[in-house]
């Protein structure tokens, strides 16, 4: 369980977060939504120690993040970040997923057969059995994102944070990726831009505006025109087809 309360973050001369709060929910997918520049990724990065807030508390399993080593933080939290550095180095899918086991071994220790088994199981879970020898840069965007999630599964941390995992994916892969996240039933926080995807795959939403979480709750309570219009500055309409509710967006209200 991760809980962040009263987070203030200043980067350079910019106040990025102002009293933001967010926490995981047992077995649920929490969606973190908000306009560009509202501080979504920054808040997420505070949760795994990449950014240190100027004020406020991040608690991991009830302990202050400052009191934990980076290794202890990683034992509690796995992250699908927006890093793309791995793509160009020629690493194989198997090697990449196996690196998720780092926190379970000392720096000098090699990976064991158990680690290899866990990595292969993680690949099987994301439906990529047989991909271990493939180069990461050969994969499609959707396959690549599933590999990123497989590495987190292999890490076996009880919480998963995902920073815009559907970026650059076509609509089919966007749905597949989020269906996969949901099927894992791990406490997760997902930063998302697409409000319809957020509504469909998240159990709980937190709406961030200028560094502050302005609304939290079940999707039907947050994805309302009276909540979204002042934050995004556009017209929002809800459409229903009997099974699902969709949001349609009008031009910016100038």
């Amino acid at each position, binding site marked *: 369980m991760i809980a962040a309360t009263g987070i203030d973050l200043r980067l350079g001369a910019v106040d990025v977060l102002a009293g933001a709060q967010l926490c995981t929910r047992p077995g649920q997918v929490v969606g973190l939504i908000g306009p560009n520049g509202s501080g979504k990724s920054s808040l997420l*990065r505070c949760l*795994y*120690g*990449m950014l240190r807030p100027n004020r406020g508390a991040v608690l991991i399993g009830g302990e202050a993040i400052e009191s934990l*080593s*980076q*290794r202890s*933080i*990683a*034992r509690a*939290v*796995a*992250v699908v*970040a*927006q*890093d*793309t*550095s*791995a*793509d*160009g*180095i*020629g*690493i*194989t899918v*198997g*090697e*990449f997923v196996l*690196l*998720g086991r*780092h*926190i379970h*071994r000392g*720096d*000098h220790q*090699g990976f064991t*057969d158990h680690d*290899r*088994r866990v990595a*292969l199981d993680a690949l*099987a879970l994301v439906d990529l*059995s*047989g991909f*271990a*020898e493939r180069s990461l*840069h050969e994969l499609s965007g959707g396959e690549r994102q599933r590999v990123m999630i497989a590495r987190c599964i292999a*890490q076996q941390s009880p919480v998963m*944070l995902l*920073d815009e995992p559907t970026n650059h994916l076509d609509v089919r892969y966007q749905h597949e990726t989020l269906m996969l996240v949901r099927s894992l039933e791990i406490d997760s926080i997902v930063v998302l831009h697409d409000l319809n995807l957020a509504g469909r795959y998240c159990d709980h939403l937190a709406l961030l505006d200028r560094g502050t979480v302005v609304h939290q709750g079940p999707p039907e309570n947050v994805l309302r025109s009276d909540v979204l219009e002042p934050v995004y500055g556009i017209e929002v309409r809800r459409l229903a087809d009997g099974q699902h509710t969709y949001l349609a967006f009008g031009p910016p209200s100038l």
Partner: protein
Amino acid sequence: MSAQHEAATADRAQSASSAGWDWSRRSTLIGLALVSVVSMIVAIGLGPVWVTPPTVLRIIGHHTIGVPEIASWARTDDAIIWEVRLPRVLLGVIVGSALGVVGVTLQALVRNPLAEPYILGVSSGASAGAAAAILFGVGSELGAESVSSMAFLGALGALAIVLALARSTGRITPSRMLVAGGAVSYLLSATTSLLILFADSTEGARAVMFWLLGSLANADWSTLPIGYFGMGVGMVLVFWWRRRLDLLALGEDTAMASGVDPGRTRLILVVVVALCVGFAVSLSGGIGFVGLAAPHIARRIVGPIHRHLIPASAALGALILVWADVAARMALQPRELPIGVVTGVLGAPVLVALVRKLPHNS
């Protein structure tokens, strides 16, 4: 056959195939180590006086494990092998290995395939220190090894400045390291040029130039243990943190989320590799290309995982430098070429060939 059984069979096949791949890389590493050892023995025998490999081995055996002296080798052969060529090749092996390992480490730390041992500005510090010693006798109270000692002090000074600059605004990031290293490098290269200008000595300028381009000619038994200890410890420390390098190469956030603090790891490894470079440059001058070419060739042979990449790059660095030294001392006999000229001439086409084979999206 049930679906579960099929999946288990596929997994076992995959495990076996992974193990096979791992074994092939291990075999490659063993092969590289063997080629390096054979190269050393052949290289020791090569020179104006040719000594056969069996004789080389007997002479080394005679001095180390008491193999009895036999009449088949002359006293001069013994002196050439034991006093001149063996220390020279041993220095080439440790300096080449260290440059290879430092190159691999820095390429992971700054996530830039063009990173090489001299980007930290440490070699420019060493050069300025050596130039001050050669041209103005600075540090002459340090004794016979005043040039090496001053070079090492210069390297330490440069490292201190780079770290102070790179850390002045918080965590050490790849770009801060590159910019700080570049700034210090320019400043200290200018200092070396000024020293040469003010010394107004053609002979001194030639000596500094030869030193700047690197040479193994100053190898002797008195300085080898220091070099082996300094660079050996550095390489062991880098290998100890091999998986941290794998994770750093994946990006800051991924490393952090995998339990590796990029700032702290980078700081410690930069100090370790900078000291390695300090030892290497102080003993053999500024030998270029080895630290850039060896990691690239190694990566093509054993892949990007540092467990294999570090030893492969060390072996290739040693191989390149030992053979470059053979070329340097034999190409224009009796004159000796600076080794940096040889590594430059040989290294450039190798790198061009490697660049042409890089995947389009890397």
